[in-house]
């Protein structure tokens, strides 16, 4: 079975998705402040890597990248509700690009699987969240 990455159209589709996704984040007052001092060019490459990973393209992110890359945001108060907002915009972005709802659900699951790395905490192994 082909990945969503391939079905959306590969790298060019990701470039477009980054535009849509990043614009949604910057326009959303719930998360915009985390991007206030971001270098947009670096952010562009990181978001492309992230969107490639969650759509099943060639994976570039590791758990360690996720932890170190977001540590300063966790210090600024990044929490579960912000991650929820990210996943919401991720789904809306993919829908705009023509992804089906089952694809979007799968992407959300993948994004959720790195939530603990992003928020820099141990995986909840058995313990409640």
């Amino acid at each position: 079975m082909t990945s969503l990455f391939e079905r959306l159209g590969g790298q060019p589709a990701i470039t477009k998705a980054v535009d849509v996704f990043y614009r949604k984040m910057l326009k959303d007052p719930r998360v915009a402040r985390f991007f206030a001092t971001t270098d947009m060019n670096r952010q562009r490459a990181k978001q492309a890597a992230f969107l490639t990973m969650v759509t099943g393209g060639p994976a570039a992110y590791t758990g360690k990248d996720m932890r170190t890359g977001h540590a300063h945001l966790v210090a600024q108060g990044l929490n579960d509700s912000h991650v929820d907002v990210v996943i919401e915009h991720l789904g809306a972005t993919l829908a705009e690009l023509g992804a089906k709802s089952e694809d979007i659900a799968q992407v959300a699951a993948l994004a959720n699987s790195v939530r603990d790395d992003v928020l820099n905490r141990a995986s909840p192994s058995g313990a409640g969240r």
Partner: protein
Amino acid sequence: MTRVRFDTTDVDVGENESVLDALLRAGADVPYSCRSGVCQSCCLRAVEGRAPSAAQLGLPPTLAALGHFLACVAHPQDDLVCARPGALAGAVDATIRDRESLAADVVRIRLTPNAPFDVKPGQYVNLVRPDGLVRSYSVANLADDDGFVELHVRVLEHGAMSRWIATSASPGTAVTLRGPAGSCVYVPGSPDEPLLLAGSGTGLAPLLGIARDALRHGHRGPIHLMHGGRTAAALYGGDELERLRRSHDNVVVTRCVLDGPGHGDVVEGALDRVIAARLPDLTGWRVYLCGHPDLVRTLQQDTFLAGASLDAIHADAFLTRADAPAAPS
């Protein structure tokens, strides 16, 4: 079989090998992470030979035009000499040809390189004084056509280089130019695309260079040149902008001042506000932003939110020592 050179490494690239694989096998120090053309950690620039276009997917078009490529997915047809993306390509001795004051605190110098020096308008060079003092300045002209390099220097109150240029660097003075560097350049191929060129202070220099380059390539789409300053005295280059506007129907010039009243063609208001009012929808536009770092950062975000694609926003923030914390003396 193709051959790749990088730093001191010189290696044959095998049949199914990428440039990155070959360089790593030979012991070269190249940063990398995903090895699949996504993370862009291994971006290199081809200084000789043609970068394989398949290894440029996902890079901004300006970087691709300047020969950048992702080493991990590069299977070149030609031999390549590669450099790190930020590396200054070379150095050339140059002679100051003339110097002219453009405003109370802006001086234009034009330099003749003593050997061919390949610099695109909008890129910057490091000007090195004989004693080693070095500062970066953007190129305002079509240096390859003109045979000289035009730089605009803002004269800072305590600027070691700029004061020297304003007072001592007379015609005939020898300096060194290192570079070029920077990716704020015109990319031919979309002649109907609308262009926004906006900036403050001597950010006008690269913007003029980019506009001249676009017009030389026969750009047909609108070219909006917008220059902002704190006061009317900070706006310079009015004559040159007027010349461009008169000789090209598609050039629109807007100049604005933050403090105090507009006059003639100069409007009152902050540059970001003026842009938002005049160009509220930048979908499909290509945007170049040069000048003060705070302004450039603001405009990057504003123009993106106004619809310009991230790939189509090119920025060059001018850092001066005046913006850095004062060094103890």
